[in-house]
């Protein structure tokens, strides 16, 4: 954990407490997440990893303490896919870009198609409700990493994917994370090795602490 004022934070938690009814999730958590870097957040189920992401995204308010939220635009891969079922994969991926027209639309569509092929998704006119669970997950990841955002929040994005698909997805996604502030929540310590020079954190016992010696090569 960096001391307050010791880093140039994109995100900072100051003595954050957050609970749901009787259940206390974060109890005085403090952390300083440096901007422009990837941060891997690990910890047991129910420790508060998702709550941490939701606090950073501004979807929750702390009961006490302070969350200094990142400036600029956010993008997020939620635990669920949260796709617009009636739209195609490309229309879903384009959602954060507003209404593109003419040349801008053509150029972005080309980029989208390239991205879909790179992660092994079909490029067709089907609405995403007709895609498999794994395919939908990849659409959700692409929507996040191709968004015009400075800060990316990803909640167990690779959950349930086989090693081959993970390799394919990450070889396309990892270069897109360079230079952006990334908060990557996972159960699997091997995922940290897939990210560019990540800082590892552990959420446990209501606190957010730097994790040491837990990064394993996949």
């Amino acid at each position, binding site marked *: 954990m960096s001391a307050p004022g010791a880093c140039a934070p994109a995100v900072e938690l100051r003595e954050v407490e957050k609970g749901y009814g009787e259940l206390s999730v974060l109890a005085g958590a403090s952390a300083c997440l440096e901007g422009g870097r990837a941060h891997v957040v690990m910890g047991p189920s129910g420790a508060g990893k998702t709550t941490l992401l939701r606090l950073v995204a501004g*979807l929750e308010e702390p009961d006490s303490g302070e969350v200094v939220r990142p400036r600029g*635009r956010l993008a997020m891969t939620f635990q*669920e896919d*949260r796709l*617009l079922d009636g*739209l*195609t994969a490309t*229309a879903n991926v384009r959602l954060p870009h507003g*209404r593109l027209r003419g040349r801008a639309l053509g150029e972005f569509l080309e980029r989208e198609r390239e991205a879909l092929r790179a992660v092994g998704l079909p490029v067709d*006119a089907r609405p995403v409700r007709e895609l498999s669970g794994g395919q939908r997950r990849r659409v959700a990841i692409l929507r996040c990493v191709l968004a015009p955002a400075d800060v990316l929040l990803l909640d167990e994005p690779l959950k349930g994917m086989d090693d081959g698909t993970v390799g394919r997805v990450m070889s396309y996604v990892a270069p897109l994370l360079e230079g952006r502030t990334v908060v990557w929540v996972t159960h699997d310590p091997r995922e940290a090795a897939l990210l560019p020079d990540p800082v590892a954190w552990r959420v446990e016992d209501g606190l957010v602490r730097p994790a040491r010696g837990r990064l394993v090569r996949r």
Partner: protein
Amino acid sequence: MARSRGEKDLGPAGRLPTWAVRLLCVAFWLVVWELAARAIDASIVLVGPLEVAGHLVSLSLTGEFWASLGISLARVLAGLAAGVVAGVALAALSSRVRVVRELVAPVMSAAKAVPVASFVILVLLWVPSRGLSTVIALVMALPIVYTNALEGIRQTDPALLEMAEVFGVRPLERVRLVYLSQVLPYLRAGFSLALGMSWKAGVAAEVIGLPDLTVGEHLYDAKVYLNTADLFAWTVAVVAVSVCLEALVGRALDAAVKRWEARP
């Protein structure tokens, strides 16, 4: 699909297609109707389907028939369109502002409960008879579209709205992409219902208000002159328009939704 006990296939090669079964059922009732007409043998009381069909053909050869249908239809569709626009706009406002929702609720309940005839007489005091069916179609469509659109908006998945908020999707885009895709099935059902109700109520209003050269006026004339064949022929025309409209509008809406969904 599970079949109830005793239900059998209608043919040796398996089930007959649904359209064939429907056609057979319609044919059965037409035969019953024709036999009943022949048994009663009094054209003032009941006219058989063959005579009605003949009457309808001769009516359809006149310009007045098409003009009357066109005028009635145009007026009802104008009211329906106004009802759809007003219903959707009001539902959007109600979903955001609770005071509006509470204020509008009793009005919509009343609009659904008040008999069409009461509305017609009231509206006749305010507008000329040629505007009557438009106002009645609007009054019929508004509560249906409003209720369905509001329900659709309220059923919109909050997880999707949260997602749109995180991604900073602009309000107009949020309406176009998030709300619309969720509300569309509700709106589609409401529109079909409103279409049928508006058309029937519009014609009923014309029977009371008697605007010139309308379906309602012809129905009234048929009653006054005890011309039962005319009455049946115009009724068949009203039903045919209703069925065609529903099929056409339904298909057009489905095609539009499919096109919208398939865009890259």
